[in-house]
Structures are given as C-alpha cells and as structure tokens.
C-alpha cells in the first residue's frame, strides 16, 4: 500500500514533467529567429504562391497560440485553430509532424532510427557496465595496492577522454582493417540473415569499443567508492568476525548494498544514451538517432529535432522513474515520508 502510494506519486511527478517538456519543446522551436519557410525553400525563384502553399502544408500559416482578432469577434474555435493546438492534437494521435527536409512523418523517421541506436548503445553500455563493475569491485577489494592505483588511473583517464577524440584515434588506427563508417556494407539487407548481422557486427566493433572505454571509467569509480564505503561498515566487521570468507563477505554483504548507486547510474545512462550517442554516431557515421539529430541541427529540420527531443525527454523521464521504483524495491529505507 505504502509502496503503491510512493509509485503513484513518482508517476504523477513524471507526467507533470512530461507535460512541461511538451510545452517547452514547442516554445523552444518557435522563439528561434528566422522564418522557417525560408529554411524550407531553397529556391531563388519560387513564386510567392508556391511559398504560401508550403506554408500551409506545414501549418505555418496559422497563428502560434491563438488569433486575437478572431477571438474578439467571438469565433473561439477559429481563434484556437493554432500551431499549438495542432501540435498537441497531433501528439495525442501519435503524430510528431512532418520533416521540413524529407517531408516524411517524423514518427516514421524516428522509429527507423531508434533501433539502430539501441543496438549500438546496448552493446556499448553492456560492455561498460560489466567491465566497470568488475574492475570497480576488484579495485575496492584490493584498495591501496598497485592494482587499485592502476584501475583508478585508467578510470580517470577513460572518464576524461573526449568521445570524439578517442573515436577518431581508433578510426585512424583501425583504418584498412575495420570499416570506418556506416552500419552495413551497401546492398546487404536484414533478409540476408547471418551475413547481414555479421557485417553489422563488424561495423559495430569500433563504435562499441569507443563507448565502452568512455563509459567504463564512470562505472569503475562509482562501483569502487560504493564497495569501499560498505567495507568500512560495522556489519562487514561483524561478518568477518563471524568467520565468513572474503568471497562471501563481498558477495552477500558488500555487493548487495553497493549495487544501489549502480542501479541509478545504469538506469540514467540508458536514458541518456539514446541521445548521448551523438558523438559516437557522428564519428562512425552510425545511422542512429544521434546522427539524425546532428544532421537535423545542420539542416534546421525543426520538426525532426522537436520529435527527437521529445523521445529523449521521455526516455530520460522513464529511466528516472524506473530507477526510483527499483530503488524502493531494492532499498527498504526508501519509504514514503
């Protein structure tokens, strides 16, 4: 019951945040300087009529919030036929608008890209988490030794390493041995089965190594400090006094408690990496969400940006929510006040 209340409160909070994000997301792209139609129209000689036609296709002929003149005349419905109401209405219908550039549904574009990013992020993160946890545990367990110092140094180094820099270095080093960009050799299709996936795997090596190296540092540090803190607790002393082996002490007492901050970290990382892979995807030309956003910024494709931001916000909010719920399950101290 208590937990039910706690979860309900957290969900409510997440929904409120989401609504705020929705509105902010709309405002953000309307306060930017410049006429979006100018961005859609590239032609020097397009007639004014053709420009107007485009304006109406994208709904840019409507007022942003409401039409004050129509409101004064009492035409409430007409007055609120605005870009904002259209945006909200479309959102509820699952429509995220039409790309300025390709004129395709933003929802379609995003769904094509999102699984490609997930493949990359999931692989990279998984390696980083496993590696980070293991190394962090070893470092804490052997704290003060050369091994610990070495792992710590590596963690700080990899954490401080700029993603794009590491990416480019790896790319230059592996040039000629591994593909420098893209996700698959042109022409191969998922229908080709194993061939396709092996080829994707080959293209995955460099970006995942980059991601793994960059993210491992963070996990090592958090794991190490978590375990070390637990190891100083009285109950560890008690466990040792009971005559438990180091293995059992670590496994049954230290790890369990040290996992709490890790859960938060992992959840947040997954939330953020949907967009956080921008640098890796850009360096290795991985056709995922990150590169989509990078290109949308370059081409000022506002609807695509708006949609990506929304997806990003939703994934971060959901990851947060998940972490909080997991926390309440894992840690009995987290209780509704």
């Amino acid at each position, binding site marked *: 019951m208590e937990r039910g209340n706690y979860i309900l409160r957290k969900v409510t909070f997440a929904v409120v945040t989401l609504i705020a994000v929705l509105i902010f997301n709309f405002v953000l792209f309307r306060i930017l300087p410049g006429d979006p139609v100018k961005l859609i129209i590239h032609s020097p000689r397009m007639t004014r009529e053709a420009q107007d036609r485009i304006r109406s296709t994208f709904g840019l002929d409507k007022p942003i919030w409401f039409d004050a003149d129509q409101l004064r005349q009492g035409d409430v419905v007409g007055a609120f036929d605005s870009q904002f109401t259209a945006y909200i209405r479309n959102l509820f219908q699952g429509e995220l608008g039409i790309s300025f550039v390709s004129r395709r549904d933003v929802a379609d574009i995003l769904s094509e890209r999102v699984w490609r990013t997930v493949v990359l992020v999931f692989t990279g993160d998984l390696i980083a988490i496993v590696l980070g946890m293991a190394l962090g545990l070893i470092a804490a367990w052997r704290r003060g030794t050369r091994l610990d110092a070495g792992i710590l140094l590596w963690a700080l180094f990899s954490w401080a390493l700029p993603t794009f820099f590491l990416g480019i270095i790896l790319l230059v080093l*592996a040039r*000629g041995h591994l593909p*420098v960009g893209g996700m698959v050799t042109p022409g191969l299709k998922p229908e080709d089965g194993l061939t396709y996936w092996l080829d994707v795997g080959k293209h995955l090596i460099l970006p995942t190594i980059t991601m793994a190296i960059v993210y491992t540092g963070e996990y090592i540090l958090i794991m190490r400090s978590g375990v070390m803190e637990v190891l100083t607790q009285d109950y560890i002393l008690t466990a040792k006094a009971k005559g438990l082996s180091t293995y059992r002490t670590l496994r049954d007492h230290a790890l369990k408690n040290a996992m709490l901050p890790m859960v938060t970290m992992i959840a947040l990382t997954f939330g953020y990496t949907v967009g956080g892979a921008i640098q890796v995807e850009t360096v290795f030309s991985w056709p995922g969400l990150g590169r989509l956003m990078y290109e949308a910024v370059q081409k000022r494709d506002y609807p695509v940006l708006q949609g990506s931001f929304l997806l990003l916000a939703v994934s971060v909010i959901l990851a947060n929510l998940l972490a909080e719920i997991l926390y309440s399950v894992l840690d009995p101290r987290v209780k509704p006040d």
Partner: protein
Amino acid sequence: MRKTWFHALLLVAVAGALLLAACGPTAEPTSAPAPTEAPAATQAVEPTEAPAPTQAGEPTEAAPAEAEEPVTLRVGTTYIWDTANPTFGWYNYALRYLLYDTLVEETKLATLEPGLAESWEVSEDGLVWTFKIREGMTFNDGTPLTAEEVAWSLNWTIENEPETFGFYLANFDEVVALDPTTLQVTLSDPVGNMEYLLIYVWILPQSVWEGMTYDDIMEFEDLSAGLGSGPYKLVDWVEGEYLILEANEDYFRDKPAIDRVVYQEYATEDTMVQALLAGEVDAIDTVPSTAIETLRGEENVELAIMPSTTIDELIINSHENGTQPASLNDPAVRLAIAHAIDKQQIINVAYLGYADPATVVVPTSLGDWHNSDVVDIPFNVEEGNTILEDAGYVDSDDDGIREDPDGNPLEYRLYAEDTASNARILEIISDGLAQIGIAAPPTVMDEDSLIALYPDFDFDLIYWGWGLDPDPDFAMLIFGCDEREEGGWNDSGYCDQEFDEMYVQQGITVDHEARRELIWKMQEKLFEDRPYIMLTYPKTIQAYRSDRFTGFPVEAGDILWKWAFLQGRPVE
C-alpha cells in the same frame, strides 16, 4: 553454486580485458608508417562487394560478382539526399541528373549541349521554340520517350509547379508535340536564357506521375520517383546509409563504363577522408581544407581542383532605410574599404590558396558572362587613407578612428556566420579596415540570427557567399528593387532604376551577344556602386582514387556530375 555467480563476474572482466587487448594487435600494423598503404591499396583493388565479412558472407554476394565483375564506383558523401522525390528534394542535385534527362544539358560549367532535344530553333519574335527530339529513346522501364512524352511532362510541370524546377517554366504558354520528333513551345514573353532554363527541367514519366494531386506529389516517397531516362537507374536507397545505382543499358548515349555506383553516407568529412585513404570509397564529393595537405601527399589519391560558381563577398548595407551610418553610403568610403581588404591573404589563410581574387559578381567560371574588362581595386592601405582624408574623414580626437564631418566616428558592425574559416576572414577584413581608421570589430553569429537581420536591413557589413546558377540571371536578380520585399533575395538593399531596367531587358534579349553586353554593363554598374565588395571565387575540391579510376574531366566543376560519370572509367 553460489560462488559461480561471483566467478562469472570475474571471468567477464577478464574477457573484457582480453577484448580490449585484442583491439591492440588489430591496430598495430597500421600504426607503423610504412605498411599503412599496403593493406589500404589491396583493399581498394579488390572487388567492391566482398570486403568479405566472413566465409558465410560470400555465397550471397560473391556469386553474381564472380560471373561478371561489374565496375563499381563507390562515392563518399556527407549527405545522399532527403527524398527520392525530385519535386522537392534539394540536396545532391548532381545525383538526380544521373536519373533524369533534360532537353538541353550542361556538360561542363557554363557550356551547353543538346540533351533529349537534338536541335532547336526559335521564331523571329522569340516566342515560338521548336525542338527536334531524338528518335528511339525509352524511359528506364522500357516505355517509349518521344516528343509526346516530353510534352506531357512539361505540361505536367507547368500545371503542378514542382518546387525544385516548376518556376523555370513561368513564361511557358503552350507545349505541344507536333509529331513524335517535333516539340513546339509557345511563350508568353521572350525568354533570354531559354536554354539555361531547360537544363533544370527534368522530363518525368507519365506512368509514375499522372493523376497525382498536389498533396500526393508532396508525399510521394516511393523509389519509383527515381524513374527517368538518364544513364543510371535507382536500385536501392536506405536513408542515412547508402544508395545504389545501376547503368541503364538503353541510355540514348553509350552505356557508361561505370556499371554500378554506390553512394555511402558519412557523418563527417574527416571520416570520409579516412574512408578514401582506406580504399573503402573511390571518390569523395568534398574535401575539408584541413585534409588537403594529407591527400596531396597520397600516391593513390588525386585531388580534383575545379572552378565553381560560388562567390564570396562583403555586403555593404545599401538600403535607403537601413540602419547603417550615413558615412557608409558615401562612394569614397566604399572605395576606401575596397582598398583596405587583402583578398590574397583571405585566399591564403581561409582557402589555402584554392580560390581566385574576385572582381565582379559574375565569376570567371561563367565564361563570357564574366566582365573581364573590370580592373580590380588593388589592396592599398595608403591609397585608402588618402581617399578618406580627401573626402573629409579625419581622426580629430586621435583615437585611431576617423570621424565624419559631423563628428561621428567611422564605426561599423561587421558580421558573418559562425564557422572557423569565417572567423579568420573577418579578422583579416577588420585588421585592414583598422589600418585606414575604420573600426569594425568582427562578430560571428549563427545563420538564423544573421538571416533575421535582413528584413529590417539592420547591419552595416556582412561577409557572405552565394552559389550561383551557370546563367547570370540570378546573380543580377539579387540586386533588384522588388527582391527587397519579404521573401525576396536582395540582401544588400541595393535599388537602382537604371539597373532594374537593364535586368528586365536582358531577360527578354534572346541574342547572346546583345544579352552579354547588358550583363557586362550591369556588372560594371554594381562594381562602381559597390553594394558588394567582391572578395573571392572559391574552387571546388574533390578527390578520387587514381589507382582505381581515371578520366574524370575536371572542367565539369564536379567529378560526380553526369558528364564525369559518362567519361570516367576504371584503370587498366
């Protein structure tokens, strides 16, 4: 049992460490300077399809490849295109010319040749054009392409006004096919650059486009939108990844020597350069200036340095209601500014030498449309100072900045879009102006903010550039009074009655020589009034693997242009 869990964790850690170690040896051979080339070169000579990921990969791909090795050109680009639909797709125009044909073709910069039309003639009054259409042509799906299909396509274009090329036919009244080889076009007014307009108007097949409403056309994204009669057929396209073309056996000219073209998309130019060095692609469509030195030293890579229709200029706000200081409207001040800009330094610093100093708005690449009589204002700070001194601009308070007779200092706002090379160019301009007693601190800003200044003409000096048409019409249009309205293209605010009259006149002058004279006069007028101080004509720089391909004509201004594909061929 329970211990295994912990052991497994350690095991994974060890495995991870091994994985990291494994990437070491992979990298080592390349890090030594000498062997770098060897693997790259072999990779390049090998067949395209089979970078053979695994044994398993071979059966599917290698089978057709072994039968007869198609000559495949792999092109690296930073962006393939936004849509297969040619009616609104603006990116990678060059690629679309591989798919569609036009009545008249641009073979190299500012050089026209017959396309689908073998020949043409125009009536005395310039209103009736008769085209002789080639015989025996087909679209890529085998359906015939005669004057009737061309007429249908042009009429469809007039009716639906596709964004990308509809406006070129603004003066077309009637298009009819008199017989399968004769097409007659009747105009409402004579058109001075008729042939130039036609190089933009693709002939599309009725089978694909018939019966679509405006909305249908806007939403059409099927690959069949790529169906045309050009030298290549669109086979496959995966957004954000690659595009595959195959040579059209029935092309009305000889089938190209390059059987297959694969465009591969790279997110950054730097990665693309690496792909070229590794031999993963055979040609790249842009070379970042930072990579020029690297590529120049590569044995198997050839840089293609070509003329372009791009111009770079310093815009001087010339609008009578603009917010520029009055002194900026003084011809003497404008002339002094022209004397204070070191174009050669801009070329050396920002373009690494790959640009020519500019004189007039129409660049040299446009052939005889470029007014070669105009002699440039030389970089001469002393002369600039003398001009200002004589015109009454004196530094009366000794702060290094001159004042006009009313005591207002010569302080101007100097803007540009925020790119690395623009920042350097602004520094050079600003330094030059400081030497003649004009304060113009450089400010870079994002493109949208810059464009937002135009409607109110709220600026003094802007460093900007244009990519022009091969016909001079557009270069002159951007100085028209009408173009100052919202949605127009006049960014200097320049407005001159005499100039506008000449613009209208050149638009209806069909005789080349007469039109050329007008265009020259207009350039001279702009040179004297100086709404723009022309800075450079930058070059286009591309690169290709000279160990795999040869024959690309650099005069085309683009080695990824239709005529380059028709002439390019594999080495050996």
